[in-house]
């Protein structure tokens, strides 16, 4: 695990989540940011700020990324979502193309 292989996602409150790029790229939006040609500030520093996503939702999203990786490798478990998070989570998922 190398530092260059990780990306830092920052929530509205400034909470930071450091995850593998491989996991972050479950999101098509983040994948585009990290792989598009030309130098996005995001690509160079490995940091993406989401001023509209709260930490609770962003953490859930990161957990989903890893769950998704595990699932794609044949580990079929359930992904639990607290009912009160569903609306915000759907809005974030829509934005992230996840």
């Amino acid at each position, binding site marked *: 695990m190398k530092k260059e292989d990780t990306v830092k996602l920052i929530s509205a409150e400034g*909470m*930071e*989540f450091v995850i593998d790029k491989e*996991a972050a790229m479950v999101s098509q939006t983040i994948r585009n940011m990290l792989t598009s040609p030309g130098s996005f500030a995001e690509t160079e520093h490995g940091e993406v700020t989401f001023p509209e996503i*709260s930490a609770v939702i962003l*953490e859930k999203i*990161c*957990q989903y990324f*890893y769950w998704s990786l*595990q699932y794609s490798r044949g580990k079929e478990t359930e992904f639990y979502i607290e009912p009160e998070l569903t609306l915000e989570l759907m809005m974030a998922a829509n934005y992230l193309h996840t």
Partner: protein
Amino acid sequence: MAMYIRVKRSKTTYFIQCDPTETALDIKQKLHTLIDQPVNDQRLILVNTGEILEDSKTLADQKVENDAVVALTLRKDDNEFEDVNIVQPNDFYQSRDADSGNW
């Protein structure tokens, strides 16, 4: 990757991929590449039980499971380890209401 754990300190969360057979020391070495802190200056604490993880034991032995939350504390200048300090998102809202002066 069999599982991942969430290592938290202050307002940062590190998602670390690992296997149940790896030791706490293996995790510290992974953290070392991310935060430039020597493994000897790191202490990992399983948040659910409050137990300090021992370097030589595996994660499975110490009941660290998939998606577990582990607190990271670092050695301070006086050679003691700092207390567990994890910022909860809710703290922000409270502090915003309590003293808007700092914003």
